[in-house]
């Protein structure tokens, strides 16, 4: 019964995504320029980091290739999360306009429908992420720091896990909208600022901020912690299990908050 339900949901999810993309494709120009610009911005941000790195050589002992690893895992995680759950990030619009009403009328989980609205496949960012990953792993393998046959599949899993974690944080943040309605500033903090922070090795931050990024909003488990095992060899494989546990905890908290929030939904006047 449970498995059939899950299968059903996956089928429904695929169908909704297909129609969402068909919708978006009505505006092809916008679709492709949007993808291109997003990739370009992400690339420029990394280029800036690369310039700084090449000036100083390392950040707290992390080489350019190692930093690129952090950056690429983040980019991949983020683009996967945004591709598969795009409008969770935009719940505010639904709350302010009252458009959530329509989603509540369907015999489907609201979150499932929300996740499939306005889907944008982040080709550009995915491409950039994979490009940087190839660059980073190439150099590291050349130095004998990693074994490609294990690093590649593990990194893909790490990116998926990271996507789940970022999704969990986004879900928890969005759910606060049921109380606060306007949440864009909170998102700046929990999503944008944390994403910016984990482009760099965690060691550059003061102790309290390290604590926030590993325990409060555990984004360090998206890339830094797994990288300690994969590229630095400073931690054992147990840290991957810990990262998976962090994702599970965050998604669980997000789901709980979401469910509580849904029952408080106030809609808007008409």
């Amino acid at each position, binding site marked *: 019964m449970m498995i059939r339900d899950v299968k059903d949901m996956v089928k*429904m999810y695929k*169908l*909704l995504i297909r*129609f969402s993309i*068909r*919708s*978006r494709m*009505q*505006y092809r120009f916008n679709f492709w320029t949007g993808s291109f610009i997003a990739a370009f911005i992400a690339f420029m941000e990394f280029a800036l980091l690369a310039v700084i790195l090449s000036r100083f050589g390392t950040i707290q002992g992390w080489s350019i290739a190692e930093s690129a690893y952090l950056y690429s895992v983040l980019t991949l995680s983020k683009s996967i999360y945004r591709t598969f759950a795009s409008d969770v990030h935009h719940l505010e619009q639904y709350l302010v306009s*009252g*458009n959530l*009403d*329509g989603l*509540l*009328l*369907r*015999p*489907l*989980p609201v979150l499932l429908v929300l996740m499939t609205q306005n889907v944008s496949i982040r080709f550009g960012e995915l491409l950039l992420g994979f490009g940087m990953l190839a660059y980073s792993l190439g150099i590291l393998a050349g130095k004998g720091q990693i074994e490609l046959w294990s690093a590649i599949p593990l990194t893909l899993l790490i990116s998926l896990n990271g996507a789940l974690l970022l999704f969990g944080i986004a879900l928890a943040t969005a759910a606060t909208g049921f109380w606060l309605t306007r949440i864009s500033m909170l998102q700046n903090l929990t999503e944008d600022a944390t994403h910016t922070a984990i482009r760099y090795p965690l060691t550059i931050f003061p102790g309290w901020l390290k604590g926030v990024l590993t325990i409060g909003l555990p984004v360090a488990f998206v890339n830094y912690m797994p990288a300690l095992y994969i590229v630095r060899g400073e931690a054992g494989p147990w840290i991957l299990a810990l990262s998976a546990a962090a994702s599970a905890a965050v998604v669980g908290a997000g789901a709980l908050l979401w469910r509580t929030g849904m*029952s*408080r*939904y*106030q*809609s808007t*006047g*008409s």
Partner: protein
Amino acid sequence: MIEASHLYKTFRVRAPKQPNGGIRSFLRLDSIDKEAVRDVSFSINKGEFTGFIGPNGAGKSTTIKMLSGILHPTSGEVRLGGINPHRKRKEAARSLGVLFGQRSQLWWDLPLKDSFEVLGAMYRMEERQRHKRVAELNDLLHLGEFLDTPVRKLSLGQRMRGDLAAALLHEPSILILDEPTIGLDASAKRDIRSLLRSINKELGTTIMLTTHDMDDIEQLCSRVIVITEGSLHYDGPLEGLRSKIGMPALIEVTYRTLEQAEKAWTHVQSSSSADGKQLQERTITVECSLEQYRFMDILRELEAFGELEDARMREADFDEAVHLLYPDLKQIKA
């Protein structure tokens, strides 16, 4: 089919303590509890066609949203065909079709037929079953001409027909319509009404609609529920509401001469059937209850004072009339 028992909905509205509180009013926000719906109960039977009316801000939409499972009531319970839409939203949604006249539920950038495809899948319809249903709805609503047009390019009348078809696609046994005729021209209204009548009669669908158009109520509803300031004020047949309000009508007649008009004016001052409202040159305006007197009788009475050049009648607006029924209604702030 639709049961509401003791529904209450209280919204917590944040408001500054004093209007000129300065910085303190920024920091210290007091919340006020606003009761949008207060102790609303009713039970609608299978196959009934019910009109749900009341002025803006009376709690209509809030009640409709509670009935359809969108809003959780502060207290009280809703049952749709025996299922509580707040405990089992997804299950209740299967037997429920909802249309918000002000807000389309269709996929805005896609052709109507794509919306049907998605909705069919959402409600787990077989493809063949869906095609059959779309064909049926097409016969009733004449969707064929714009089935392939993106929804954003449809006219309001077409869009409303499309939305109605979408709400009916999964053959719901309950249909809730929030202002289904809003903004439509006379012919589009007529189409929508005849469709609603036929699905109610032929399929036995239980329908509840809100409207500000008295004609919707008159032509469709066997039962009327009036809500004002969050509470029920009337629940029963339309005739009963009419007699309660009296449905005042204004009749305006113009005489050939001033003398005739003045004579008639003196008469209506003491007449029991028509109440004189205004005398302006050769025209007099009288108010009367069409429940008690026929329009023709009033005209004959007035014609006794001379030949009429012109006669007009205006029925009081229904919302206005509802306000007349409850004169102590305070103006509700938006």
